[in-house]
Each structure stands twice: as C-alpha cells, then as structure tokens.
C-alpha cells in the first residue's frame, strides 16, 4: 500500500480536528480534576447530553444549528451547576464516594437519554457540508469549522483564566487548593464555576462530534476515555497540557491508524500513555 506524503498531511489535519473535540471534553475534565480533585465519570455523558440538546433543538424543532449549539452550551452549563450543587458538593472529599456518585450519574444520564430519544443512531446536520481540495488534498469543511470552534473556545477559556478575577482565582485553586483557600477564595464558588464551564465546553464538543460522526446515548463513554487519556498526557489540572495532550492524541491516533490500521490507532495511543505514565507520572505540564 502506498501512503503518500499528502495522505499523511491530510491525516494530520483530520487528527487535529479529532483532537479539537478531545480538547473540548478534556478541558472540563482536567479543570474539574485539578480544582475539585474529582474524576468526573459523568463528564462523557454531559458531552452526550449536550449533543442531544442540539439534536432536540436543531433536528426536531428546526432551530438554527449554531444557535442550538449556543443554547445547548448554556443549558448544559446549568445542568453542570445542578450536578455540582446536588450531587458533588455534599460529598466532602471522599474519593470513593465521588467515583460512585459520578458513575451512578453517568448510568442515569445514559439511560434517561436513551429512553427519551430512543436507541437508534442519530446524526446532526453538517456544520458545513462537503470538502475542498488544496494541492491535491481533500479537506472536509466541517472539520475545519470544528478545529476553528475548538481553538476559539480554548482561547476564550484561556483569556478568561488569564485576565479575569474569577479566572485567576480558578487557576490558583487548580494549582494549590490550600493556598487558594488561604487567599480567601470561596472553594464552593470555584467548584460550581468550573463544573459549569467544563460542562458547557463538553456540550460544544458533543455537538461537533455529533455532526461530524454520529450521535448515540452511549457515545459519552468513548469520549470520556479519550478525555482521560489526554489529561494523563497533559498533566492533571493543566490547561496547556489538555490542549497539547488532546491535539497530540488526535494526531497520533490518526497517523497510527493511517500507517498501521484502525485497530492500532486505538490500542497504541493507550499503550503509549501507560508507558508515558511510568516515566512522567505528572504528565507533560503537570506539577507537584
């Protein structure tokens, strides 16, 4: 089989697009992990719910796709707030309880969505149909849109964290929880904020994933796994880490799948990540 350089470049672009959706889910996971020290098992389901809200609005009720994505983002952020207030906040820091409650939530959300929307595979309308060709390479338009949206949101989050008071407080909490407490930062407010923001981002990720690929109530599980993988690469609680980790994962999967077949594209990144963990347990951008 001859894989040309063009194929490889094309693959990298597609990988970056995949990476973009991974980043959107990973950012929320990593922020929640950094600030609340919770592995949010239901985050993949939040991603899925976000996509289904878009489906509900856009396909079933004819709302404009981009407007639907914005509404879904807000709705999912509210869902995140509710989850944080009702389920996560009362469990003061017991690790096992967090694992149980979030996995429980993920089962509930999956089944609830399945019962509401029935089980079939669904599809969101394309962000921008068709593909264009540049120098003999075919690049799908919707993937370009997806990368742009993912990057814009990441930039927006980055500037929020860098330039606003709440953002700075959040960064401080992620890096040093006790220290942040001493600085008078309200940890409950931080938790609520971070879950809301993370959920909103995941919803957009879900919408992008749902329009490029397809929607089903179980899509969150795979997305969650990708998110977890990328935070291991990037390092706990690190935003640049999540971005680099996500893009790296997307490109690695794409290239490995191109050269060694789609099975290796799934297994090898996981094996690499486990090996990686042995040598750099804190991740690329992690801190002690």
């Amino acid at each position, binding site marked *: 089989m001859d894989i040309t350089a063009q194929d490889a470049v094309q693959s990298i672009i597609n990988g970056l697009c995949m990476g973009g959706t991974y980043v959107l889910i990973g950012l929320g996971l990593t922020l929640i992990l950094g600030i609340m020290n919770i592995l949010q098992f239901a985050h993949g389901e939040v991603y899925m719910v976000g996509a289904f809200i878009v489906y509900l609005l856009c396909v079933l009720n004819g709302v404009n796709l981009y407007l639907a994505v914005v509404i879904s983002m807000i709705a999912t952020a509210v869902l995140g707030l509710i989850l944080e207030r009702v389920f996560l906040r009362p469990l003061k820091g017991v690790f096992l309880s967090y694992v149980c409650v979030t996995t429980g939530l993920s089962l509930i959300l999956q089944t609830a969505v399945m019962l509401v929307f029935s089980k079939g595979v669904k599809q969101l309308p394309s962000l921008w149909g068709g593909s264009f060709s540049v120098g003999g390479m075919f690049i799908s338009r919707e993937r370009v849109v997806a990368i742009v949206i993912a990057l814009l949101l990441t930039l927006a989050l980055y500037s929020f964290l860098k330039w606003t008071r709440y953002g700075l407080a959040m960064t401080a909490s992620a890096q040093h929880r006790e220290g942040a407490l001493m600085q008078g930062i309200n940890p409950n407010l931080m938790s609520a904020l971070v879950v809301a923001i993370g959920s909103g981002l995941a919803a957009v990720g879900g919408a992008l994933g749902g329009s490029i690929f397809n929607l089903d109530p179980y899509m969150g599980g795979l997305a969650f796994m990708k998110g977890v993988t990328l935070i291991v690469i990037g390092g706990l609680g690190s935003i640049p880490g999540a971005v680099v980790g996500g893009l790296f994962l997307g490109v690695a999967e794409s290239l490995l799948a191109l050269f060694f077949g*789609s099975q290796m594209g799934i297994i090898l990144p996981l094996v690499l990540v486990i090996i990686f963990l042995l040598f750099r347990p804190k991740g690329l951008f992690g801190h002690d």
Partner: protein
Amino acid sequence: MKKRSLAILLALMLVLGLGSVWMVACGEDEETTTTAAPTTTAGPTTTGGGPQTTAAPTTATTAAGETKELVIGGIAFLTGPGAAGGMAAKTGWELAAAKINDAGGLKIGNDTYMVKLLVEDDAMSVDQASTAAQKLIQQDGATFIMGPLVDAFKNVIYPICAQNGVMLADVDTKNASAAIKYEGNTDVSPDRPLHARFHWANDEMMPYLFDYLQENYPDAKKIAVCGVTEACTVALYDWLGTTLPARGLERVGALEQMAPDTADYVPPVTRLLSAKPDAILVAVSTPQTWGQVTKAARDLGFNGPVMCSTHMGVEFALMIAEGAKDVFGAGIAMADLAGLPPAMQEAHEAYVAKGYPAQDEIADVYLVGYNGLWVLLQAIEKAQSVDPQEVYDFYQTLTNPGDLQTLWGDGAYVGGLQSTGVNAVLCEPYWINGVGADGVQKNLKQVFIDVP
C-alpha cells in the same frame, strides 16, 4: 470469630462440597427419570438424542379443538449501543406474532395454538446470552429460539438449545455462509442439527450486488474491500480474491478492518483509497460502517460507487453520509415502498400503526425479524406439529419453489443442498436498494437469492 472454628468450617465446607458433587454424580441416572421436566405449555415431545430434560407428554391427541400456547423465544441485544437493531428485531417478531394470533392462531390438527412470544436481552455478552437462553427454555418453556443477532452468540446458545431439544432459528442475515470456511463459523451444517437459517448470508448476496455493479457501472473494475474487524471479514476477503477475477473484476488493496470504537473513519478509508479503486465494498457492516465509510470516501474526493452486502436500508447510510450518490446495497428503501409486495406493505402499515415513523432508518431490521418468524410459523403449520424435531425435519422437505412465502415476494423454498449438506437454508427473493446518480432513494432491483 475464633480462628480455629473458621478453619474447621472451611474443612467442613470442602467435605460437604465434594460430597455434594459425588451425590450429583451418583444420582445422575435416577435423577433424569424422577425430575419433573420443565413443563412447557405447548407440551412438545423430544426425540433428540439422549435422556433429555424436556419430556412432557400432553400431545395433540387428547381432546379436539383445544386452544393452546406455543412459546417462542427471541434473543437480541436490547440494551447498550446498537440496541436499536435488537429492539427493531423484537418489534418485527411482535408484529409477526400478532398477525398470526389476530388471524386465529396456528391450526395444528384439531388444536389451535396461539403464539406467545418472549424476547430476552443478551446484553451483547456471552454469559447473558447463555442466561437468556436457559431462562427461555427452562423457565418459560420455549421450544423454538430465534436470534441472537450476533453470530458469535449463536455458538453459545446453540449447545443449550441442542441439549434441550429446542430448535434454533437464525432469522437474521449471516455474515458468511458455510461455504466460507473460518474458525468460529456458526452457519448451519450437518454437525448442527436443530439449527436452521431463515435468511441469506453476505456471500450469497454478493454475486447479485456485483451483477448490479457491472450492469450500471461498467467501468468499475477495481474493488477495494473493507468491513468490521471479524474473522468472517477476513474469510470473505480471501474468498473475494478468487470470486472477483472470475467475473472480470479485480480485488485491489489490502483488507481494511474497522475496529469497534473507531471514532474517525478517515484514516482507514485513506488507506483503502490508496489502492486507487473504482468501487468500495463494505463486506460486513455494523449499522454505522457503511455510512461512515461512504462519508469519509466522499470527503476524500472518491466518486465511485460504494456498496454494502449486509442488509440495510440506504436511509441509514445517507443519514451519516448526507447527500451522497452512487451508493447501493442489500436492503429495502422505505422511501420507495409503492413497488414492493403487498405482504410487505401490509407489514409496514402495522409497523406505522404501532407508532413508528414510516421512514425509519432501522425499518430493514424489523422486516428481517418479521420475515423470519413468519417463515418459522409457516413451517410449523405446514409440519402440523409443534415438536421442534418434527418441524425441523419437515422444514427440510419444503424444497419446491413457492413452498414458503416471504415479505419480499413469493417463490421462496428451502435450498442449500450443495453448500451445507442439509436443506436448511432459505432461498428467497430480495432487493437491492440505493441511490443512483439522481440522488433519489429507491429499491433498485429485485433479485432471487438461490443457494445451490
């Protein structure tokens, strides 16, 4: 608790445990005679080999004109991803059972049998498939089992059915028939008595797809093959290596296998296209594969035909690959119902009456399920018996065209004498559906799948 007492208890447990095993082993012979059989409501007698548990005696000769129940079990995946297919098959079975029951049930001898359909979840897990089969047979008294939809699970269920003298009816498409040899092939064969196939297999369908390809796309010579990662996909690929040249076509490139959990189909399709094919064949497909491959191929600038040999409505592929053209495969396009046989239109009316949308991506699956149970019930009625062995034996004699009716048209019969050595494969009409250059979804061609 004292440590010593625990040690003693453990020893006791060991002794008792081994003792019980011994008791079982010794008591085996008398047990079979004394244990009450799981009394099925239908009361079939088993002629199947050995001292089996099913041995209840109420035969049809007792009283004239009794109304009885015939329990038929179905196993499908009703939970988890892909549950849509299982649910659709269940719906189809329910519709077929309702049709027979509404018409007054099955008349066998002087008795009337009402069909009682029970569908259990295999949850896509071997132990759950096994559990479901045991429950259906032992607790609910099912004497015919339909499904499951995944080939691998048929192997788990078949021994349980055979042990209990229950007939296993494959009502779904087989990925590969017995003509394709590979490890784990679960197709009907002389080694598997009480196992019958009520639908075609992918390799039996493929010649008709190639016929259609050669008629409509005469320039398409080079065919690239892909499919989901399974042993049968590899076997089919090897088989195509000899089959295609015989028809003047060429198999190009390596087999591209799509692993489950593949999110992005662009890399494998890039590999597929690197062999510069004229057409793509999706040899074994999950509900998504056909559509995802089509979409990725079109995004990568491939304009040739994309075909799929697993039964599937083209709606399904087009839902993912919006606006694609030159896509065809085995299946029924619900958008183009008017030209189809009356039996199918009637079935679809019942389906819509149950509240399902008229243009449903998974309509094909329910039709297959419906058809399978309908054929099984026809065989039971023709055999004039509810005993699985008798039905199975009689089914194999229905070799004249028109002996059985199907949803896709008349003229079906039991064939496959050469390929399997037993007459347990259904030969039936079927359809190729798809989208041509005009972009309209329609049923393109009726074919008759004839298994030699």
